[in-house]
Each structure stands twice: as structure tokens, then as C-alpha cells.
């Protein structure tokens, strides 16, 4: 698929810029557990925009940003107020504020700003595709200055917003992190969590406005929350989380954009909304991260559990052979043959009979030792009944590396504890 520059460069660039600035700021929303604030902001700035337009009669970027920033601050104040006065949880307060403010914005557009360029539909769905640039179709025919002149103004708004968002996150990295992690401590140290909250929210409001004209508020919300959530699954340091979130956002923007026409093209149907397909890609990346993430992923935990189950099976096999030999019996026991084969491969069990080798006996003694020491601890120290301790000890022998120190040499059932004096 060839990308024709005239058609594709600016919408794609706009999507990437919107993705980057939203993803950057979104990390702090997700960490502060106020993800809904992104949703709230992207809706509640609408009346701010309309009122700014009604007062000035202008739709220029500075006017829109001032309107958005004021609406952003109003949102935060109203959310706090409703939380306090209505005695409701933050989510409910945000939900009330943003739905009412958005509705107010829609009413204002219908009543007062009719027949203007403001359009609530555009706010919701975005107009990536409308960022078409109708200059010459060949890049080689152009100098840099022509490209710069030809760029639609909303690109410049996005570039500036993006630079400011990067500056904010770089310059105030440690302060934002502190306020998100421990606001009370930070405030006591003079890094007011409230002030930082307002700064962050003004930036979110600004990013929302810059971005949704191009990509629509659904993608803005997704870009605020999903890349950070993806990165949260893959990293455990804030700096790397922010990097990963930005990479995920860019990847979703690019592949969603290409997918929005390449896939319908291949299927022979009409193109789909690019912002919508980017959002879907983000969702897919999140699912993949949840499934395949190295620490928190579903697959990783299946592998971990499988490994644990195999180790427990081996421990149990060795222990039961050890106990049988202790009583002078031989083992005919029905043990899982794969576990037995593994024990033989690792040289714990003799190849020709179900008997422990030298190393096997040492390993088995360690397991039995842990079991019996836990049993005696649970009876002597924890005061559990003698006939109740086998099951918990059976778990602890596999889970705990440390064992209780005190030992009388015998377990509560009178059997010797391997490796102690009476053994």
C-alpha cells in the first residue's frame, strides 16, 4: 500500500501527536486512580469552548485553550464540591460534572452558537480524515518552507501542545510522581499535591482540546487511559512506563490509521473511521499485554503455576518414597509416571527401581524435614491441634524456604526430623 503524502501525512501526524501528548499525561491519571478524569475533561471542556467562542467570536487556538483551561479548572472545583456536598464517591462526582457540563455545551451550541463552525458531533468523533491537505501530490516538488506553510493550523496546535506536555513531564517528573504516590507527604514537604493536580488538569484539558478536534473525544479518552494501562502491565518503573505508553500510543495510531483503509480495501468495503480503528488497536494491544505481559500476564502466571505444580509433584514423589523407605517398605505406589521419569532424569531416583539415589535422598530428606519442622512449629508454637497440622505443613513445605528454627528433633507424631540431632 502506497501512502500518498497529500492524503496521509497530516492526518497521521495529527494522530501521532495527539496520541503522544495524551499518553504522556494519562500515566498520571491512571496512577492516581482518577482515570475517569480524562473522560470527564474531554467532555466538560465543551461549554468552555462555546462560551469562549461566544464572548470573543473567535475560534483561534489561544482563545479555545483559555476556554478549555478555565473549563478544566471548573471541572476539578465542581468535582471536589460535589464530592463534599453530595457526599458521594469521586467517580459519581466526575460522572455528574462531565455529563452535565457536556450537555450544557450541546445546549449552548444549539441555542446560541447555531450556524457556526462548532459542532458537537465533531467533538465526539473527530475529523482526522478532514485534515486533508490539497497541495501538490509529490514531496520532491516541495521545499521545507512550503510544507510548513501548507500544514493545517490544527497540526501546529498539536505540535505546541505536545512539546508543552513533554516539557511538563520532563521538568516536573519528580514532583508529579511524588504527588501521585504520596500526596500527603509531598504536601508536607511543600510540594502541594493540590497545586500539582490543577497544573496536570489544565494540561489534560488543553491536550483534550488540541487532540479532539483532530481525533475525537473517544480516541482522546482512549489515548489518555489505555497506553498508560498497557505500560503499567509491562513495566515497574515510572520512567519506563511513560516510554512504553508513548510507544504503544504511536504504534496504535500508525497501525490503526493504516488499518482503517488497508483492511476495508482488502475486503472490498468502504473505509472506516480512522480514530475508531486506532481505538480498537489500542484495545487489542491492551488484551495482548494482559495475556502476554512478563510479570502480570495471564500466560506468565500459567507458566509459573505449571512450574510450581511440577516442583510440588516432584517434592511429593521424593517425600513419599522417603517415607516408605523410612518404614522399610518398597514403593509400588501409583505415582505420575511423568514425574517419576523427571525424577530419574535428574538422578533422584534409580533408573531400574523406585528407590532414591544418594542425591535423591538428600533432596527428599530436605522436603520431609521442612514438613515435620512446620508440623512441630504449628503444634508447639502456634497451638494447632495435632491432627490438623498435616495439611498446612504440606503447603508450607513447598512454599517456604525458611523453616522454624526451634526443633525438638521429632515431629508431633513422634517421627524423627531429618537433619536434627536425634536423626
Amino acid at each position, binding site marked *: 500500500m502506497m501512502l500518498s503524502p497529500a492524503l496521509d501525512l497530516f492526518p497521521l501526524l495529527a494522530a501521532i501527536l495527539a496520541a503522544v501528548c495524551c499518553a504522556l499525561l494519562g500515566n498520571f491519571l491512571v*496512577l492516581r*486512580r482518577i482515570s475517569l478524569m480524562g473522560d470527564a475533561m474531554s467532555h466538560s471542556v465543551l461549554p468552555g469552548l462555546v462560551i469562549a467562542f461566544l464572548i470573543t467570536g473567535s475560534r483561534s487556538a489561544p482563545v479555545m485553550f483559555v476556554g478549555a483551561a478555565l473549563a478544566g479548572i471548573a471541572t476539578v472545583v465542581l468535582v471536589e464540591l460535589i464530592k*463534599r456536598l453530595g*457526599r458521594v464517591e469521586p467517580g459519581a462526582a466526575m460522572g455528574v460534572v462531565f455529563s452535565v457540563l457536556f450537555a450544557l455545551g450541546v445546549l449552548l451550541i444549539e441555542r446560541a452558537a447555531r450556524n457556526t463552525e462548532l459542532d458537537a458531533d465533531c467533538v465526539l468523533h473527530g475529523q482526522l480524515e478532514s485534515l486533508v491537505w490539497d497541495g501538490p501530490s509529490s514531496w520532491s516538488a516541495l521545499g521545507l518552507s512550503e510544507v510548513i506553510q501548507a500544514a493545517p493550523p490544527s497540526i501546529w496546535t498539536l505540535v505546541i501542545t505536545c512539546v508543552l506536555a513533554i516539557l511538563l513531564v520532563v*521538568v*516536573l*517528573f*519528580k*514532583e508529579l*510522581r*511524588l504527588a*501521585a*504516590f*504520596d500526596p*500527603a*507527604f*509531598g*504536601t*508536607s*514537604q*511543600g*510540594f502541594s499535591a493540590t497545586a500539582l493536580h490543577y497544573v496536570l488538569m489544565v494540561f489534560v484539558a488543553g491536550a483534550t482540546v488540541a487532540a479532539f478536534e483532530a481525533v475525537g473525544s473517544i480516541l482522546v479518552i482512549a489515548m489518555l487511559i489505555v497506553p498508560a494501562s498497557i505500560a*503499567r502491565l509491562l*513495566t*515497574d*518503573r*515510572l520512567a*519506563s*512506563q511513560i516510554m512504553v505508553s508513548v510507544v504503544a500510543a504511536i504504534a496504535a495510531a500508525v497501525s490503526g490509521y493504516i488499518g482503517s483503509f488497508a483492511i476495508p480495501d482488502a475486503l472490498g468495503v468502504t473505509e472506516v473511521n480512522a480514530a475508531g480503528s486506532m481505538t480498537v488497536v489500542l484495545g487489542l494491544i491492551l488484551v495482548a499485554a494482559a495475556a502476554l505481559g512478563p510479570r502480570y500476564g495471564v500466560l506468565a502466571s500459567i507458566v509459573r503455576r505449571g512450574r510450581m505444580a511440577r516442583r510440588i509433584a516432584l517434592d511429593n514423589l521424593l517425600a513419599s518414597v522417603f517415607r516408605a523407605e523410612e518404614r522399610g517398605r518398597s514403593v509400588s505406589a501409583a505415582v505420575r509416571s511423568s514425574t517419576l521419569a523427571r525424577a530419574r532424569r535428574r538422578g533422584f531416583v534409580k533408573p531400574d527401581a523406585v528407590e532414591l539415589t544418594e542425591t535423591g535422598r538428600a533432596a527428599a530428606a530436605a522436603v520431609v524435614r521442612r514438613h515435620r519442622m512446620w508440623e512441630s512449629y504449628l503444634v508447639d508454637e502456634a497451638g494447632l491441634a495435632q491432627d490438623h497440622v498435616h495439611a498446612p505443613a504440606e503447603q508450607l513445605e513447598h512454599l517456604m524456604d525458611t523453616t522454624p528454627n526451634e526443633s525438638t528433633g521429632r515431629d508431633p507424631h513422634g517421627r524423627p526430623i531429618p537433619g536434627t540431632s536425634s536423626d
Partner: protein
Amino acid sequence: MTTGVVHPGHLPESLAGLPEHSPDSPLSIHAMTVAYQRKPVLWDVDYDAPARSLVAIVGPNGAGKSTLIKAALGLVPRATGLVEFWGEPFKRVRDRVAYVPQRESVDWTFPVSALDVVCMGRYRRVGWCRPVGRAHRDAAMACLERVGLVDLARRQISQLSGGQQQRVFLARALAQEADLYIMDEPFAGVDAATERAIVELLAELRDAGKTALVVHHDLQTVPQYFDQALLLNMRVVAAGAIDEVFTQHNLQKTYGGKLTLLSEAAEAIARSDLRVR
């Protein structure tokens, strides 16, 4: 017992007879009343913390122990009252006061390492908008060493045990190199090793001439770990040296039976349209 109602321009009766608060005192609280949702939770607190001492703040659940700390540090608004640290407002002496919040008050799955958290104790020295430099990281590392966690410095904090997390908080307080340490339940839910570590640290702090105010739940260990006590139940029941105030009588007054009339008064104020004063 006064109710903490301060009439404009007048000192409450309880203050009238008291001597001037000493500017030596690391923390002096005058006639402080605090309300949540317009319901008073602390009434007319008067307290002077003696310098160079370990003070246990003791009282039942809901007695307002955490509220006392937070209100003193300006983290929750005070309805009335004045709080001074060494005779100055908190804003002027932030450098000299270390605050250890309750461990459960933060999200321990947060993507930071133990060392990152301890470095937060240096932020005030580092200042706004500047990265934490080598020297400050080394200082933070030394504090981790003091609480025995130097090997776990690079661990993400969710991978630490509860006791280790508490020690990270203590290390962060140490990194502040403060003169007054205000700790909210540092002993809650910690293992024996951590409890010993905290006790040793407290002793070190006292030997170095510092003061610590510690919310503490285990009455049995109060006389052993502390030399001063502040008994609190919505108001100050008693405050002073352990052997003077830690008596059966005072404990009975603090814990025994709810102070029903005071609680009812608080409810009535919350329901009324009057301002909390």
C-alpha cells in the same frame, strides 16, 4: 472541660491560665479544634511537645490521633487553633519536620523502587524541577542502609513485605534529616525484626537530640519504647511523662466507655447549620 468554642477576639478559658508556650517546643498546639464534614473530631487540643523526647500518641480508634497529626501539618483544615513548630508556623520549618504517613495511605503497587521512595525525602533539598543528584542518592542509600534494606534498594516496592515497606518509609523520614519526626502508626502490622529496627531508630533519634511523636497502638510497649505520652480521645485526656500520665485512671478515661455526651455534641453540631468553631 471546655468545648473548644472560641469567641472571636477571646482566648478560650483553658488557655487563659496557661504560661506562654515555649519557643523551644518542637510542636505546640493551642486550642485546636478539627472537624470532618462539619462534625468535630478533635476538641480544643492544647499540647506542647517537650524537646528531645519520644512521645507516644495513644487512644482508641476514632480518637483523632491521625487527625491531630494531619491538622498540625496543615494537611486537613483546622476549624480553630494555632499550631507552631519551635515557635514558628509550619511553612517556615518544613525542612525540620519529617512526616511518616500510615503505610496503608499509599498505593504500594506504584511503579517506583525502594530507593526512589527514600529519595523523596531529599526532594526539598533538591528543590523544584531539578533531578535528584548523585550526592542525594548516596544519602538516601545510607538511610536504606540504616534500616537494613540496602540490598533491596532497586526492588519495586510491591515486592517488599509489609515490614520492609514500613522501613522504606522510615528511611525516607531519615533522609529528610529533620529535627522532629511525626509518625502515624509505624508499628502497625510489622514483623518482629522491623519492630526492633524502629525501636532502635527511635532511640538513635533521641540520642541525637531529636524529637519523635509516634501514634502507637500497643499499650503494653508504650512505657518500654517511649518516655512521654499523649492520651487522646477526641480531646486531650492527659499528657506528660510516662510515669505520671500512664496511669490506670487516665487509661480508663481514654479507653473506658465512650464519652457519650461529647460524641452527641459533635453529632448535633454536624446536623446544625452552625459553623464549627
